[in-house]
C-alpha cells in the first residue's frame, strides 16, 4: 500500500471530500483510495479537520443595520437635523443667539438701552429710518452732544445714588435710635422690678425687726410671776371664751 502522498490527486480529493465529484471522478477516487494508504489517511485527516472547523459556529448575530440614507444625496435639511442632534447644548444656545442677532440685523432692528428701558425698533430694509433721518436731520456735532448727554446722565445718576445713600443712612439711624430706646426701656423695667423686690424685702425685714423689738420690750417689762400668770390665765380665758 502506498503511504506517501505523491499521487497528484489533490483536486480530485477535494472534490470528493466536499461531494462535488462527478460520478466518474468519484469512482476513480474511491478506486484509488482502496489502493493508496496515504490518500486514504489524508482524507480521514481532512474529515477530522473539517469536524474541528465546524466547532466554530456563530452563536449570536449582532444587530447590524445599514442605513441607506447615509449614502445617497442627502438634503440640506437632513444634514442640518443630524448636525443639530449631535451638537452640544451650549453650542445650540450660542447658535440660536447668533441666528437671532443675524435675523435682527437683516430686519434692520435697533436695540437701545436708556432711561426708558430697553427699546426695539424693527425696520425692514431701513426705509423708515432713512425717512426719519431726512425729516429730523442729523446733528452737526453728534459727538459733543452725546458727551454732554452722557455727562448729564452721569451727574443725574450720581445725585440719585447720593440721595439714595443719604436716605438709607437716615433710615438706619432712626432704626438704631428706636432700638436703643427700646433697650433702655427694657433695662429700666428690669431695674425697677428688681428695685421693687428689694424694697419690699427691706420693708418686710423692717416689719419683722420692729415686731421682734416690741416683743423684747414687753418681755423686759414683765417679771416671772407676770409671765406665769399670764400663761395660766390664757387657758382660763380660752375656756371662758369657749363657754360663751
Amino acid at each position, binding site marked *: 500500500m502506498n503511504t506517501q502522498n505523491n499521487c497528484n490527486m489533490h483536486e480530485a480529493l477535494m*472534490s470528493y471530500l466536499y461531494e462535488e465529484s462527478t460520478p466518474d471522478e468519484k469512482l476513480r477516487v474511491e478506486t484509488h483510495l482502496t489502493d493508496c494508504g496515504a490518500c486514504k489517511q489524508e482524507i480521514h485527516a481532512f474529515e477530522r479537520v473539517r469536524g474541528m472547523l465546524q466547532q*466554530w459556529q456563530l452563536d449570536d448575530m449582532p444587530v*447590524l443595520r445599514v442605513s441607506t440614507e447615509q449614502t445617497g444625496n442627502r438634503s440640506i435639511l437632513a444634514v442640518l437635523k443630524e448636525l443639530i442632534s449631535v451638537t452640544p447644548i451650549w453650542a445650540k444656545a450660542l447658535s440660536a443667539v447668533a441666528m437671532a442677532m443675524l435675523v435682527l440685523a437683516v430686519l434692520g432692528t435697533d436695540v437701545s438701552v436708556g432711561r426708558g428701558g430697553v427699546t426695539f425698533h424693527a425696520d425692514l430694509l431701513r426705509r423708515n429710518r432713512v425717512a426719519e433721518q431726512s425729516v429730523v436731520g442729523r446733528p452737526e456735532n453728534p459727538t459733543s452732544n452725546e458727551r454732554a448727554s452722557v455727562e448729564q446722565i452721569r451727574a443725574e445718576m450720581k445725585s440719585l445714588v447720593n440721595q439714595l445713600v443719604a436716605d438709607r443712612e437716615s433710615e438706619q439711624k432712626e432704626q438704631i435710635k428706636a432700638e436703643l430706646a427700646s433697650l433702655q426701656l427694657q433695662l429700666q423695667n428690669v431695674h425697677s422690678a428688681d428695685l421693687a423686690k428689694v424694697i419690699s424685702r427691706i420693708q418686710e425685714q423692717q416689719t419683722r425687726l420692729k415686731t421682734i423689738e416690741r416683743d423684747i420690750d414687753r418681755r423686759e417689762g414683765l417679771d416671772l410671776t407676770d409671765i406665769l400668770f399670764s400663761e395660766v390665765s390664757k387657758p382660763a380665758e380660752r375656756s371662758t371664751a369657749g363657754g360663751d
Partner: protein
Amino acid sequence: MELSDTQIIERTLGGEPDAFNMLVRRWERQIYGLTLRMLGRDEEAKDATQETFLSAYRNLPKFRGEAKFSSWIYRIALNICNTKLRSRSKFAVSLDEQRELTGFELAADLEDLGSEIQREQITRHVRRALQGLPFEMRQVIIMKEYEGLKFSEIAEVLGIPLSTVKTRMYTGLSELRKRLEHLREAM
C-alpha cells in the same frame, strides 16, 4: 413571493433605496460570518460588515448582473478584510489573541471537562490556526466550510481558476491538519 436579489437591486436603483435593506437583512449574517472568521475580531468584523454593505450600496449602479449578487458582495467583503488586515499593525494584538497566545493550552484531560468548554477550546484553536493561514488559503477555506459555497462559486468570487481554488483548499487543509493534529485525541 420573495423577491430575488436582482429584483431588489432593480427596485433600489429604480428609486426605492429602502429596498436595499432587504438585501442587507438577507446577507448580513453570511457577510458577518465571513468577516469575523477572516479578521478574527468581533468589532472589526462588525465594521467590515457595515462597510461592505455601504460600499455595495454606493456601487450598486456598477453591478451588471453578470455575476450573482452574493459573489459580488463576498468579493467586496473580502477586499475590505484584506485592507483591514494589511493596515493592522504587526504588534497590535487583540485581547482575545493575547489570551490565546499567552495562557491558552488544552487541558490535559479533556474528558473531564464539559463538552461546552471543550468545544470552546477547540474553537479557539481553530480560530488561531485559521488566523495563521495565508490570506489566500484562509478565504477559500472560510467560504467553503462556513459559507457553503461550491468551488466554482469561490472561483467566481475570487476571479481565479477552479483548479487554483482546489489547490488552495488542499494546501490550506494540510496546514490546518498540521496545526490541529494535537487535537485529534480530543476529538
